[in-house]
């Protein structure tokens, strides 16, 4: 190096300079406030005004949380009053879990969305697994667009939203939301996830209780084996798994360890237990050690698919029959049913939840939102136009807009079969299997409706009705903890690795107490303190 006229010291200093430039470029807009009370300050949430202009649900609402249930599309759809857009281009950035649809030029369905919304919709679509990386670069490059999906795991989320997103409080808080009737139809629990630093910074992408986990069963395969799939205790459940598992026949009882199903049997809280103003994490309870013990036994006895931890593909295993039971969200049903070969006798049922020692089960209630959607800072009239567009995206079951969003153009994207719309091959592609990523702008509260499978509506309804009022929500949902935001992923990975070591027999269950001590030291205690402070702030303001 010396003969080039550059010393090692100069080279090192240059390297540091380059690294610092990169860091500053990525962080220049984000402040690092850690004032927990200020960040978690409350605001008047949008009024909840249920939409009553549509068809009556066919099954009664047994709980405030119960989605509206329908078996068929109504004969008369409610028309949309006007086009929400003003002809301008709306740039959006959204994730997708479905196939990426064809681009607008070769996608008449997408062109139809433009026509109906009165905008030129320009979407950047990123597969969900890669959305985090893409989002980080878009933030740094200021290329997020007008409307962008934000996941709760983004570090320094409140500070980011304050810097980059429009504060929507004056448009949506309290009665303001009534100008957007379909947004006013979104449940209050969903809006709680959009409040940061005393303002409403986003619109929810609601999923309601359908994000809760349930145990799916291949009823047809159980019947083929001559085994009754019911169980009323933890021991009976393990015994049932033993009866149907046969690794030599490429068949396992479970696609993965069903933690959310075992937890109610052991009376475990949904992540945190909130009692008398203090929080206790489920990791700290003796019952969690019992959960690890049962889970380990299930794996050791070959009752769980052997790739469940290293190469999980549960839906495919359930459909192929190599797993007879799968723990997944209620909203996973369409994806599971879609993979089943027509005429194969595929019959899906859900297992009832079981409580500890015969007591009533308190299943975990899923978080009410999939994500939130923020708007880029803009003048008032532009913001209201974008909110009109989101309002159209939230038009519920029974409206023409909902029908088009889900099924597209009749005769091209779908055909009516026995009174039910069925996507064609073209429709599957153009609408991304009925899940066009526009659904990540926002959605209506998800109805219980399974086109062409009216029986599924009753199956899911009965399952939800059996526990919704007793469901346990996560008490920290919608609260912000700076430690969780920055250290949460690393601390979570530490705990997950320790859990996997125990499940795979690489560490004894007794090692868990040491893991919890470490978990608390690494950030668990700090998160608890911040969440407790946040709970006080929300209660006091």
């Amino acid at each position: 190096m010396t003969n080039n006229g550059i010393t090692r010291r100069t080279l090192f200093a240059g390297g540091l300079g380059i690294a610092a430039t990169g860091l500053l470029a990525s962080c220049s807009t984000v402040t690092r406030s850690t004032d927990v009370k200020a960040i978690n300050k409350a605001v008047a949430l949008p009024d909840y005004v249920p939409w009553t202009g549509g068809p009556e649900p066919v099954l009664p609402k047994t709980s405030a949380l119960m989605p509206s249930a329908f078996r068929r599309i109504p004969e008369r759809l409610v028309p949309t009053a006007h086009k929400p857009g003003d002809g301008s281009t709306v740039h959006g950035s959204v994730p997708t879990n479905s196939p990426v649809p064809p681009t607008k030029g070769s996608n008449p369905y997408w062109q139809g969305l433009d026509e109906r919304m009165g905008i030129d919709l320009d979407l950047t679509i990123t597969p969900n697994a890669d959305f985090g990386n893409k989002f980080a670069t878009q933030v740094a490059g200021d290329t997020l667009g007008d409307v962008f999906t934000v996941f709760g795991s983004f570090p320094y989320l409140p500070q980011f939203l304050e810097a980059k997103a429009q504060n929507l409080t004056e448009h949506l808080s309290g009665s303001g939301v009534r100008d957007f009737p379909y947004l006013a139809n979104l449940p209050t629990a969903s809006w709680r996830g959009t409040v940061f630093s005393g303002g409403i910074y986003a619109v929810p992408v609601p999923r309601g209780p359908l994000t809760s986990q349930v145990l799916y069963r291949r009823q047809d395969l159980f019947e083929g084996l001559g085994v009754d799939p019911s169980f009323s205790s933890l021991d009976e459940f393990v015994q049932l798994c033993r009866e149907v598992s046969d690794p030599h026949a490429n068949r396992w009882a479970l696609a993965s360890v069903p933690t959310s199903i075992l937890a109610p049997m052991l009376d475990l809280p949904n992540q945190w237990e909130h009692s008398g103003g203090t929080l206790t994490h489920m990791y700290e309870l003796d019952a969690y050690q019992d959960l690890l013990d049962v889970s380990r036994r299930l794996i050791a006895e070959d009752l769980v698919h052997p790739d469940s931890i290293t190469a999980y593909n549960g839906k495919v295993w359930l459909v192929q029959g190599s797993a007879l039971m799968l723990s997944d969200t209620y909203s996973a049903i369409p994806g599971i049913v879609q993979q089943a070969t027509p005429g194969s006798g595929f019959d899906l049922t859900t297992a009832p939840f079981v409580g500890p020692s015969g007591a009533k089960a308190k299943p975990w209630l899923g978080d009410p939102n999939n994500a939130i959607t923020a708007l880029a800072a803009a003048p008032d009239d532009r913001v209201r136009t974008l909110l009109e567009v989101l309002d159209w995206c939230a038009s519920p079951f029974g409206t023409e807009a909902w029908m088009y969003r889900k099924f597209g153009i009749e005769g091209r994207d779908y055909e009516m079969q026995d009174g039910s719309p069925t996507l064609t091959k073209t429709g599957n592609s153009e609408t991304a299997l009925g899940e066009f990523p526009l659904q990540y702008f926002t959605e209506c509260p998800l109805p219980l409706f399974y086109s062409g499978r009216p029986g599924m509506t009753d199956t899911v309804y009965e399952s939800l009705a059996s526990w919704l009022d007793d469901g346990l929500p996560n008490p920290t949902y919608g609260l912000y903890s700076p430690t969780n935001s920055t250290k949460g992923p690393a601390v979570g990975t530490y705990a997950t690795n320790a859990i996997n070591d125990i499940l795979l027999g690489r560490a004894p269950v007794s090692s868990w107490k040491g893991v919890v001590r470490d978990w608390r030291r690494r950030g668990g205690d700090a998160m608890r303190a911040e969440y407790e402070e946040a709970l006080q702030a929300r209660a006091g303001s």
Partner: protein
Amino acid sequence: MSATRSVTVPGPRNTKRKRLDAPPLPGRMLTGFALFVICLVVLLPFLGIVSTSVAPTSQVNDAGGFVMWPKGLDFGAYESIFAGGVVTRALLVSVGITVVGTVISLFVSAMLAYALSRPGSYGSGFILSLVLVSLLFAPGLIPNYLVVKQFGLLDSYWALILPTALSAFNVIVMRSFFMNIPKELIESARIDGAGDFGVFLRIVLPLSKAVLAVIGLFYAVGYWNAFFNALLYINDTAKWPLQLVLRTYVINNAQLGGADLGTSSDALPPQASIQMAILVVSIVPILIVYPFLQRHFAKGVLTGAVKG
């Protein structure tokens, strides 16, 4: 008295001379066995991928999605993905990026390496230091994105070529190779009236086929396998290369519908067969190129690596 002369006739040559340099038989057997096992470890997964892609639907479903040996041949998965849908388009994009990118990369790398290999080139020491800095300190995701954006390359195929057109490692290997070319050859060319470009194009490049073949393969494999830049820089999904499609449908497990595949067939092959067929399509082109360049490999890499 006549003197008698005795003539010694050499006996027959010992043709069964023992090879002292050869390792003993057990050692050779052990080596052979170890290589056999390593080959199996490498080839078995590939066999499974190919088998699953051509196995009948019923066998794939019965086996839970992965078949080690097909009970029959069913090319439905290949017919589906080559029917003009998303995979066919992505394959064309990947081929285009790989060919154009490799040519550009070889050209700029060879020019830079040649300039740095000639003693006395103006500023060569400083430029070499810059090249080494880029080897030691990667710029990172976000600065790269900002540069691509500032150059207006977002959503352009050039965003998949230009940011990775020059690899410092490859430049160093090429530079070392060029330094081995006898300077007398270059001086002779100059005496005959050749300029710098003439020497480079007519003397240096023809003598450097080995290193060009090896570095070309490095670049080609890099371009062929790249998906992350496409993920970051390409918003228009019609411009996605094959590896990004592969990632979406194989790693992320998204489903391919009939129209995605460009087929109008009613009965689609199992998802696993289609995924494995896409995998085979993504692996085979590089496998085909490899044997043609293998003979240049040792010479290209070793000559370039030893001389510093």
